[in-house]
């Protein structure tokens, strides 16, 4: 068993980064995620593992520092919250285009605009539909506990290097701020220069005589060439859709109705299940863990076993579009959401199930 600690979600992210063998963190303060960099600065990972931590002048700079670091094969990450992630979108698109691995963390707060510093899930569209310009996808992981905040740092790095594409942890202000017990994984040493060059032969690390120069770019001025780049990206996304879908079901075996929710909303739905079952309503939960690749087949299959689905999100109805595309029109699928930083309580979710799905 690994080391147990009581930690905030944001701190778990930071500690996991050091333990995952991360080479560099670049970020800019924003509530509700500033503890990530604060924890790192306090922890001095440059002494523990040699990891670089730098407070950049903006999120625009942070994401481009990631591009630079990732382009040399380094394991780099940033964290921010919604407005900061919006600022990073150009850089994220460049990284997807140049096929660079990196870990991004969005501790979402309510928007639009400066919005609120309270938790929200309103950045779902931005995360899974591209966000920046061009045809690209991110690997999007949605943790629902502090434990998963830690675990998904490692998973996110693994997947991003496996597919040479940025991975995003889409969390929210509540999971970032709340404290829970975490079992930390054992530290993995940072890669040596030789290991890095072996793992990332494409990286710009300094050209030895015996290979061509490596170029990191997202530019191809020739349309035929740029179409090939796009086809390559799409082929990669297809493989991810086949192989990397993650989800969880809770009390779904005998369920007549289903909640579909990710992250914090899924935690709330677990409580709603207990309340509903006490009233005799057989409801279960389907929780997508990878929001991209989305569990399309799995939702299609499970939707055939239930009478109706309530999609619960802390937004005005975003993931429900993907649920409807996956499940089709055979059963009733409705949305229940609170937004602007309000967390729904389990009772109102049950009431919404009764009114919108069972009674409606």
């Amino acid at each position, binding site marked *: 068993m690994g080391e147990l600690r009581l930690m905030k979600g944001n701190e778990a992210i930071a500690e996991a980064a050091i333990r995952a063998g991360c*080479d*560099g963190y*670049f970020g800019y303060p924003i509530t509700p995620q500033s503890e990530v960099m604060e924890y790192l600065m306090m922890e001095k990972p440059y002494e523990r593992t040699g990891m*670089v931590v*730098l407070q*950049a*002048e*903006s999120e*625009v*700079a*942070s994401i*481009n*520092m*990631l*591009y*630079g*670091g990732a*382009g*040399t094969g*380094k394991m*780099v990450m940033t964290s921010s919250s919604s407005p900061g992630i919006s600022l990073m979108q*150009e*850089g994220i698109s*460049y990284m997807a285009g*140049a096929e660079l691995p990196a870990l991004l963390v969005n501790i979402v707060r309510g928007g639009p605009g400066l919005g609120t510093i309270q938790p929200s899930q309103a950045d779902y569209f931005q995360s899974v539909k591209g966000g920046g310009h061009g045809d690209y996808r991110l690997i999007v992981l949605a943790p629902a506990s502090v434990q998963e905040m830690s675990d998904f740092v490692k998973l996110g790095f693994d997947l991003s290097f496996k597919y040479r594409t940025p991975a995003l942890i889409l969390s929210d202000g509540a999971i970032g701020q709340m404290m829970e017990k975490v079992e930390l994984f054992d530290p993995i040493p940072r890669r040596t220069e030789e290991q890095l060059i072996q793992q990332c032969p494409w990286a*710009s*690390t*300094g*050209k*030895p*005589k015996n290979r061509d*120069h*490596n*170029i*990191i*770019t*997202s*530019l191809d001025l020739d349309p035929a060439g740029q179409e090939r780049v796009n086809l390559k990206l799409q082929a990669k996304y297809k493989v991810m859709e086949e192989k990397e879908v993650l989800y969880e079901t809770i009390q779904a075996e005998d369920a007549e109705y289903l909640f579909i929710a990710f992250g914090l909303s899924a935690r709330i739905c677990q409580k709603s299940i207990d309340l509903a079952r006490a009233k005799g309503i057989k409801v279960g939960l389907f929780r997508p863990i990878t929001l991209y690749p989305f569990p399309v087949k799995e939702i299609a299959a499970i939707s055939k076993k239930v009478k109706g689905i309530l999609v619960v999100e802390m937004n005005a109805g975003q993931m429900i579009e993907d649920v409807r595309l996956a499940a089709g029109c055979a059963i009733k699928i409705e949305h229940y959401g609170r937004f602007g930083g309000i967390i729904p309580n389990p009772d109102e979710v049950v009431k919404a199930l009764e009114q919108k799905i069972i009674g409606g």
Partner: protein
Amino acid sequence: MVEQFAKLDIRKDENIVYKRTDLLVDRPLSYCPGCGHGTVHRIIMETLEEMSIQDKTIGVSPVGCSVLAYDFMNIDMLGAAHGRAPALATAIKRMWPDRFVFTYQGDGDLAAIGTAETIHACNRGEHFTMIFINNGIYGMTGGQMAPTTLPNMRSSTSPYGRDVETMGFPLKMTELIAQLPGTYYVTRQAVHTPAGVRKTKKAIRKAFENQKNKTGISFVEVVSNCNSGWKMTPVQSNKWMEENMFPFYPLGDIKVDGKLVETKATAAKE
């Protein structure tokens, strides 16, 4: 004639006084004939070769006419987003402290959209080299006004000349960053004459040598021509540059070994 020449056996190693460095890829440059970009590419690559550091160097190219610099420079490179080269270089140099890292940027890239990245990399005293090609215009996008466009100078977005009342004043980024404690060597050069090329190359050499001592930013501005954007012949553009650009952007060292130099450049600020 050329063929005949090639066959002559005067082409022996001991007779060669000049040859293209192998660090330039053997392919046609994408620059207009007469443009300064190609010359600066060459002297950077010659410098790396003379210092034997090509296998330890990582370059960052900009968005601008030199966006394809990575196709011409036969070293490992990264193409940055518009203006962000200093952010890339910051991370690269911090995580690869034993590599030589440089950025290559135009004036729109470095002094407009990338102002924040430029100033903060300089202010943090990152230990890399910045090469700044100031041609007073946005060459790549077709000759629009740049932050460095001279007062009354015409461009496609200041067709009646830059009116400083409404379009602002030209920005002397080099003098500005020289004020920051994080810069160690700041100089302004030009490559329009053989003497200028030699001086610029010396400056670039110094800027790379400084990286060995981790002294902070070494910054080489090259005042350059954009004959296409300025709508002149190459010869006219070089003359115009001497008569108009140099009085506003005087050549010479601005900061050496971390100390500001009293030169034409600093005096001209007054």
